[in-house]
């Protein structure tokens, strides 16, 4: 702590606090999390509903964006999970739109990044995990468990591989959620640290330059992480609905 004079609090931006007084956070309390989740909903409605209200054959700009997102996720679901997976497209689209909106809204200065919280990403990942597992069991029955039994491996290796497969299956929600929250939290914290350095005149040009550069990087990260989260969801979904695996 050589720079004792600096007031750098990179983690402050992640504090969950009630918006209307009180310091006790009940599950129903209206907090900054609630606010930014609500803003994400409004942003999605603005783009996907109000932006497409023209229903034009020749789309407006906002309608083009909505169509591109639709086409992008729709073809991703179809390519990764096959034709059977298309009926789960609305769920995947919901996840993608939420993560994308939350990531991008989090880049607005002074905003709150809901997807930087493990509670949020773990919930998302567990929804996917349990959803896919139940779906697989319902659709395939006990045959779903055959994915742990690697039939292409030598018989002697199969029990070992089965243990590894089971472990990797249950680790999925962990990696799925920590990847998203970790990426966003780290990036935002780094921006905050550099922003704190900007209070010293000598290094402020460097610090502001670094903030700009990292901001650009974070913009990329926000989109890429939404993409990664979605395509992993599709890959997991494929186990439940696809016919070929491993």
């Amino acid at each position, binding site marked *: 702590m050589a720079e004792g004079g600096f007031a750098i609090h990179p*983690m402050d931006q992640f504090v969950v606090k009630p918006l209307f007084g009180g310091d006790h956070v*009940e599950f129903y309390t209206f907090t900054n999390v609630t606010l930014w989740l609500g803003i994400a909903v409004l942003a999605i409605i603005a783009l996907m509903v109000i932006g497409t209200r023209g229903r034009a054959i020749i789309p407006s700009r906002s309608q083009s964006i*909505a169509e591109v997102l*639709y086409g992008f996720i729709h073809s991703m679901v179809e390519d990764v999970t096959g034709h059977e997976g298309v009926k789960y497209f609305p769920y995947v689209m919901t996840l993608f739109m939420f993560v994308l909106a939350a990531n991008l809204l989090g880049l607005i200065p002074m905003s709150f990044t809901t997807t930087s919280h493990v509670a949020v990403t773990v919930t998302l990942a567990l929804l996917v995990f349990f959803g896919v597992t139940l779906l697989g069991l319902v659709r395939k029955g006990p045959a779903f468990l055959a994915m742990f039994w690697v039939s292409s491996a030598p018989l002697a290796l199969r029990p070992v591989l089965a243990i590894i497969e089971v472990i990797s299956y249950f680790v999925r929600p962990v990696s799925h959620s920590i990847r998203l929250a970790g990426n966003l939290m780290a990036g935002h914290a780094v921006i905050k640290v550099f922003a704190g350095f900007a209070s010293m005149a000598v290094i402020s040009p460097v610090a502001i330059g670094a903030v700009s550069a990292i901001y650009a990087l974070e913009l990329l990260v926000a989109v890429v992480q939404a993409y990664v989260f979605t395509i992993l969801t599709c890959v997991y979904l494929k186990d439940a609905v696809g016919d070929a695996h491993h």
Partner: protein
Amino acid sequence: MATEAHGGAAAEHAVGMPQLDVTTWPNQIFWLLVTLAVIYFVLNRIALPRIAAVLAERSGTIANDLTAAEELKHKAVEAERAYNDALARARADAAKIVAEARAEIQKELVAATAQADVEISAKAAQSEARIGEIRAGALEAVSTVALDTAAELVAALGGKADATAVSAAVSARLKG
């Protein structure tokens, strides 16, 4: 790390990672589930069907336009063929008319030529006759002139012209 340096202000600033403060988890999870439900409802009920309909309509329109274009192209090809046919027919008609005209002209020409030939031969015969007359006249005149000239010549040379003898000599000469 910075928060440790400013430990006194910990009430205002984050302690450690706010992400790991499990007392806020129920709140976040509850509102997240509400959010996801709303987004799912809005997308599934309104946005996605609308976009799907627009995309389907667009591809339908494009397919229709392509079909229409194909049809128009077909029509254009047909029209071109009809035009070419008409052109060929017109050309054939023109050739026929030209041939007829030529034949007619030929016929007229032959007739005119024949008539002209007849006239020419008539004229030639007439001319022949006249030339014969003239020649006969001329021969006569020549013999008369020769006779006179010979008589005059004989007289001028101091001879005494015997008309019969001179006439016989001139006739003999003229026959040559």
